[in-house]
C-alpha cells in the first residue's frame, strides 16, 4: 500500500507541557482516517506539525515516502484547520485564485469546486459577509482545488448549526466515495463513525490506538433482551456462556457479550426454557462507548 504520510516519534513540548508525546503512525492511500481525542489531546498540534506551521520538538515525518520536500508536498494535499482563514475583503473567487497561485495550479477548477460546496451563487460576495457555514464550505472548496491526494480536515463542523453539519458531512462522504484519502480530526464521534474506516486515538498527547475502527476494542457488542418474567430470564442468562454482565437499562436488560451469538438461537433456547421473550435486539458497541472505554484510564 502506498504511504501518504509517515510520522515517526513526533513530539512537541510547550514549555513543560507535552502536547504531543512520541506519536508514530502511517497514513495509507485510499482510507478515511479519523483522529479522535478529547479537547487538548494534541490533534491539532499533530496536524500543525505535519502541515509545516508548528515546529516539532523532536521526531520527524515524511510525505509521499519522502520523494518531495515538505512545502512542495503541501501543494499536493488539501487542508483546513480549526477555522477558515481567508482574506476578508476578497470575494470567494479572488481568495481561491490566490490559493491557485500559491499551489501553482490553473484557475479552471474554481467554479467546479464552488459548485460542489454550493457557493456558486455567492462567489462574488466578500468573504467577510459569509456565515460560518459558508466560510467552512469555502475552506473545503479551497482544499479541493488541486484535487488533493489527501484531504486533511480539522474539526470541520465546529460551531456549525445542524444543517451546516449535515451539509459538511455530505460533502465529506461524497469526497470519500471518490477514493480520496481523508484525515479527519474531530471529537464528534458519530461524525467519525459515519465516514471513517480507520481511527487514531490520542489522549494527553499520547497515541492509544491506531487501526481499523472495528478492531479498536476487542468486544462482541451486547444484546438488549426482555421478558415478562424477569426473574426467570435472569436465571436463564446465568446459565448461558456468552452472557457477561447484565444491566437493567429501563427498556430491557442489556447483556454484554463474551462471544459471537446468534439471536435466533437465543430466542429458541429461551423458549425451550419456558421463557417468552418480549424483546431481543443485537447492539454493536458504538464508537463513543469504545472511545470512552479506551480513554477512561
Amino acid at each position, binding site marked *: 500500500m502506498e504511504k501518504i504520510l509517515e510520522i515517526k516519534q513526533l513530539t512537541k513540548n510547550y514549555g513543560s507541557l507535552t502536547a504531543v508525546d512520541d506519536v508514530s503512525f502511517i497514513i495509507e492511500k485510499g482510507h478515511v482516517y479519523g483522529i479522535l481525542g478529547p479537547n487538548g489531546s494534541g490533534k491539532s498540534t499533530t496536524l500543525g506539525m505535519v502541515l509545516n*506551521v*508548528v515546529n516539532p520538538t523532536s521526531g520527524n515525518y515524511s510525505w509521499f515516502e519522502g520523494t518531495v520536500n*515538505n*512545502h512542495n508536498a503541501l501543494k499536493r494535499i488539501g*487542508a483546513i484547520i480549526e477555522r477558515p*482563514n481567508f*482574506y476578508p*475583503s476578497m470575494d470567494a473567487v*479572488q481568495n481561491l485564485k*490566490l490559493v491557485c497561485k500559491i499551489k501553482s495550479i490553473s484557475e479552471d477548477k474554481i467554479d467546479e469546486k464552488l459548485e460542489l460546496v454550493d457557493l456558486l451563487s455567492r462567489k462574488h460576495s466578500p468573504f467577510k459577509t459569509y456565515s460560518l457555514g459558508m466560510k467552512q464550505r469555502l475552506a473545503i472548496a479551497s482544499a479541493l482545488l488541486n484535487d488533493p491526494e489527501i484531504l486533511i480536515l480539522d474539526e470541520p463542523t465546529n460551531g456549525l448549526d445542524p444543517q451546516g453539519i449535515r451539509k459538511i458531512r455530505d460533502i465529506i462522504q461524497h469526497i470519500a466515495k471518490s477514493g480520496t484519502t481523508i484525515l479527519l480530526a474531530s471529537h464528534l464521534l458519530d461524525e467519525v463513525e459515519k465516514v471513517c474506516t480507520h481511527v487514531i486515538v490520542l489522549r494527553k498527547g499520547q497515541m492509544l490506538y491506531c487501526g481499523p475502527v472495528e478492531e479498536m476494542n476487542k468486544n462482541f457488542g451486547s444484546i438488549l433482551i426482555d421478558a415478562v418474567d424477569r426473574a426467570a430470564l435472569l436465571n436463564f442468562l446465568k446459565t448461558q456462556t456468552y452472557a457477561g454482565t447484565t444491566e437493567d437499562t429501563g427498556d430491557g436488560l442489556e447483556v454484554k457479550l463474551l462471544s459471537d451469538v446468534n439471536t435466533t438461537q437465543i430466542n429458541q433456547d429461551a423458549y425451550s426454557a419456558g421463557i417468552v421473550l418480549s424483546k431481543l435486539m443485537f447492539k454493536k458497541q458504538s464508537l463513543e462507548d469504545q472511545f470512552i472505554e479506551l480513554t477512561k484510564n
Partner: protein
Amino acid sequence: MKRLLDIEFHKFRYSRSSKVLTIIYLVIVALMMLVGMIRIDFNGFSGSFSDLGIFDFPYVWHVSTYFTSFLKIFIAIVIVSLTASEYSNRTIKQNLIDGLSKKELVLSKFYLVLVLAILTTVVIFLASLILGLIYSDYTEMGIIFSDLEFIGAFFLGHLVFFCFCLFAGILLKRSAFALGFVAVWWMFEGGINIIAYVLDKAYGTQIYDYVLHILPLNAMSNLIKQPFTRIDLIGSSIDQVTQGSIVFEYHIEWVDVLSVSLWSVLFIYWAYALLKRRDL
C-alpha cells in the same frame, strides 16, 4: 520570483487600505507639484516657490526627494497592515498550509517592498523631472541628469524603512502595535541622539557622529540632508550672517548607504528567523 510577486500583488490589489493610502500618496505628490505653481501676492510682494530656484536642475532632485521623503509613512502603513493582517486573519497559517514555504513567504513580502520602493522612486523621479522641465532655467542634458544620486538615496531610504516596517509587522503581529513600535523606535533614536550630543559636548567624545550613521532611521534620515541652506536666498543670507564660517554638507555619505543597505538585509533576515522559529 514572478510567482511570489504575483501572489503578493494579488493581496495588495484587493486590500482596501492599500488602495486608499496609495491614492493619498499620489494625491499629495500631485498637490506638492501644484504648490510650485501658486503665486503669492502679499503686500505688493509677489512670488512663488519656483522663484526660489528650488525647481532648477539639479537642485530639484535634492529638494523634491527631501520634501517627499516623509510621505513614505503612508506606504509604510500599507506594508505594516498587509503584514500584520496576515497574522490577525491567520492567512499566514493558511498560506503555509497551502504550500508556501516560510522562506518564500518572507521573500514575497520583500519583493513587494522592493517593488514599492522602486515605484515610489519612479513617481518622485518623474514628478521632479516634470517640475524641473517646467521651471528650471537650465535644461541642458548634463545638468538635468547630474546629482541623480539623490534619487538613489531616496530609493535606499524607502527600502530600509519598508523593511523595518515589514519586520515590525511580523514581530508584533498587530498593525497598531507595529506602527506604535515604529514611532517609539523613531523617538528612541531621537533620544539616543540627544544623549550622544550632550555627552559629546560635555566630555568631548564623538559618539554622536557614530549613532548618526549606525542607527537605521538615523542613517535613513541622514542620507538626504536638508537642502534649505542650498537655496540661493537662504544660503546667501546665512553666509552674510556667519561670514561663510559654517559650511553645510549636502553630499550623500557612503557610510549611510552602507548602513541602510546592511539594515535592510538584517531586517529581512530577522523577519525570516522570527517566522521560522515561531509556531503559528
